[in-house]
């Protein structure tokens, strides 16, 4: 198992180095094929690790493999000894499985997508580095290694968003993602420092018994981690970077900004779930943040014209669901939604990528339409993903989303009325989701074509199509295969729940009520979908007119609640002002001092220079004067 785990980390790193150093000499599809081969191998290794763990008895399902001593600081109580190693348990292996699995498909997709791009080798090198960082993040033996991966994925995200660094938008978006993530990282670091101070260790293996026994945790400690999770997983108020991150290539959006990296925050919360449960009100903060983010992003997604932005906001919204689940204590449900979301959101992004590819870079939904005739396969695959996102039975999203809503309702039913509010927000978000998904699909594929007549959209090449097909299947059956709570068919929960904290609140409803809610949610979703499809399905002109002459609230949505503008006003502008003050200080005072010193000595030397007139006799004369002075001194 050590070998498998080691290879899982070494292969992506080696490939990243190989492509980064020598990739420039490879042409055409070679870098992509190499990277895809590596990713597929990693998936195989992850499966091997999974099978190995499954063969173990439930309470012994972990493998700790240390490779070498990394840090050994301090001594006694203050000692911090960390190994570079791997911690395999159902949680980390689950993440590794879908990261490498979905990752492989996106690598495959990228082969064609990036074939004609300049610098595809760079792209694949970063992608391999990302895979490595993500695997370190989930498999790392201690929190510091997790943090290393955390920073690594942040770096790769920055590099890949800014892949097209010649474009100002991309470079700016990369910087924004990087900076906003740093804010979250501070929270993560504070959490780590505090954890070490309280428990004296950061290793997952050593923390396992500690966390199992812990009863009270400072809520701020847990919230430190949660701030980190908010940064990485784009929750309020740190979500602003994710929509801008769509400036990166579309497969990157699919892999990093939808399926894998942004779920790192969920992973962190799940990994430390006992701490969160023991931290009094911290879980409530998580729940409300998640629900608010879900609703907020869902509202914004209603009126976005850029297809990738719609998907980006839906990602933020779905991540909100996952945090809602975490906050409710339904950690297993959160993991479930992470996985189904990885399937259908990757599918949707890759489908959007195929559309954009077919339209030579057009991302504006208003300039699409009627594409189902040109791209029938893509349309079919994306429809499956859209149904999954909208939560329509029997597509994947339905099961995970419904489970989360069910838990919220169950807790309300058990006597906590505030949970009904959370449930209501979730249901409202679900309706919004169905509506904007229908809008997006209809604007893209339905109705009449508004495509630039010079373009001749064509179906994506084979590797892209294969990836789409596989993800389509996963989006259809992935939910039902992994769990259906109402029927007590919960293989994922059986697998992963033992390593998660037990829910602090009731999560089960009476069956009748459960089925009823399910039917209600289903009805709402279908209804919202129908409305969306009808609204945008017919003649486009009135719909466009409606969007253009929108009332004030809709304007707010179109402007994405002007969060960016608010940040610019409250944070960026003051900071810029201070920076400019500093600049002025530097220019006037600091530089002035140096320039003054320079010109003073120049003045001085200009004066002294006059003595150097080149006349030998003058030198001789002054020499004599000097001798006279010296003699006078000697005799005095």
């Amino acid at each position, binding site marked *: 198992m050590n070998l498998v785990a080691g290879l899982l980390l070494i292969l992506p790193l080696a490939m990243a180095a190989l492509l980064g150093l020598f990739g420039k000499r490879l042409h055409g599809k070679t870098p992509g094929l190499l990277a895809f081969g590596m990713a597929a191998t990693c998936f195989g290794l992850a499966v091997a690790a999974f099978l190995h763990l499954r063969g173990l008895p439930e309470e012994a399902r972990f493998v700790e493999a240390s490779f070498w001593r990394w840090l050994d600081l301090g001594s006694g109580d203050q000692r911090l000894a960390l190994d570079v190693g791997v911690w395999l348990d159902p949680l980390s292996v689950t993440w590794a499985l879908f990261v490498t699995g979905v990752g492989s498909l996106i690598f495959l997709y990228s082969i064609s997508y990036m074939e004609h791009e300049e610098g595809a080798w760079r792209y694949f090198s970063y992608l391999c580095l990302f895979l490595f960082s993500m695997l370190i993040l989930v498999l790392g033996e201690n929190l510091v290694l997790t943090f290393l991966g955390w920073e690594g994925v942040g770096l790769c995200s920055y590099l890949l968003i800014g892949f097209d660094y010649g474009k100002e938008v991309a470079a700016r978006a990369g910087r924004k993602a990087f900076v906003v993530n740093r804010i979250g990282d501070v929270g993560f670091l504070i959490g780590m420092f505090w954890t070490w101070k309280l428990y004296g260790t950061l290793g997952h293996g050593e923390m396992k018994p500690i966390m199992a026994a812990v009863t009270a945790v400072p809520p701020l400690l847990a919230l430190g981690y949660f701030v980190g999770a908010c940064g990485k997983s784009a929750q309020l108020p740190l979500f602003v970077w994710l929509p801008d991150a769509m400036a990166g290539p579309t497969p990157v959006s699919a892999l990093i900004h939808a399926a894998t990296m942004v779920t790192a925050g969920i992973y962190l919360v799940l990994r430390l779930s006992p701490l969160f449960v023991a931290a009094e009100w911290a879980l409530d903060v998580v729940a409300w943040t998640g629900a608010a983010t879900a609703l907020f992003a869902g509202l914004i997604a209603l009126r976005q014209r850029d297809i990738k932005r719609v998907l980006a906001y839906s990602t933020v919204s779905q991540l909100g669901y996952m945090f809602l689940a975490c906050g409710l204590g339904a950690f297993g449900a959160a993991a479930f939604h992470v996985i189904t979301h990885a399937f259908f959101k990757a599918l949707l992004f890759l489908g959007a990528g195929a559309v954009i590819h077919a339209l030579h870079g057009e991302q504006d939904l208003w300039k699409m339409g009627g594409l189902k005739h040109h791209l029938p396969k893509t349309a079919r695959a994306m429809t499956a993903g859209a149904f999954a996102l909208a939560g329509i039975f029997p597509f994947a999203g339905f099961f995970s989303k419904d489970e989360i809503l069910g838990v919220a309702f169950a807790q309300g039913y058990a006597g906590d009325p505030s949970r009904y509010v959370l449930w209501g927000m979730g249901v409202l978000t679900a309706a919004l989701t169905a509506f904007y998904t229908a809008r997006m699909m209809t604007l893209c594929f339905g109705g009449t074509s508004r495509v630039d007549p010079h373009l001749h959209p064509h179906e994506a090449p084979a590797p892209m199509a294969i990836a789409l097909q596989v993800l389509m299947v996963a989006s259809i059956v992935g939910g039902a295969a992994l769990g259906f709570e109402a029927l007590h068919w919960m293989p994922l929960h059986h697998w992963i729940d033992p390593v998660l904290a037990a829910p602090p609140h009731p999560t089960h409803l009476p069956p009748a009520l459960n089925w009823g809610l399910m039917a209600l949610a289903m009805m709402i979703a279908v209804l919202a979908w129908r409305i969306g499809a009808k609204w945008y399905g017919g003649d486009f002109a009135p719909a466009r007119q409606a969007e253009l002459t929108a009332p004030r609230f809709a304007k707010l949505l179109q402007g994405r609640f002007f969060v960016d503008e608010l940040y610019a006003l409250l944070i960026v502008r003051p900071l810029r002002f201070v920076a400019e003050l500093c600049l002025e200080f530097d220019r006037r005072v600091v530089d002035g001092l140096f320039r003054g010193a320079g010109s003073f000595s120049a003045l001085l030397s200009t004066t002294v220079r006059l003595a*150097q*007139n080149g006349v030998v006799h003058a030198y*001789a004369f002054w020499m004599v004067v000097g001798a006279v002075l010296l003699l006078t001194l000697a005799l005095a």
Partner: protein
Amino acid sequence: MVPQAWYLLLSALLFGLGIAGFVARRNTLVMFMSVELMLNAANVVFLAAARDHVPARGSACALFVIAVAAAEVAVGLALVLALFRLRKSVQADEVRELRA
């Protein structure tokens, strides 16, 4: 015995004439001659000061001075030659190459 002070006064006068020649004359050759005068004045001091004690040591020091003077003259005259080749003149005031 002639008092040492007389020798030393004479040496001072010779040295002063040397300085005067070096500072006042413009002809580089004469300037070098003045330097020779100053070196000779120094030799007189060496020998006069050593007369009543270790005369041999005074002579040895004077010998060193003569050697240095010989070296100085050789290089100095070579410089004069080079200067003349460059300027067709040996007047020191016509050369201001060292001006800053």
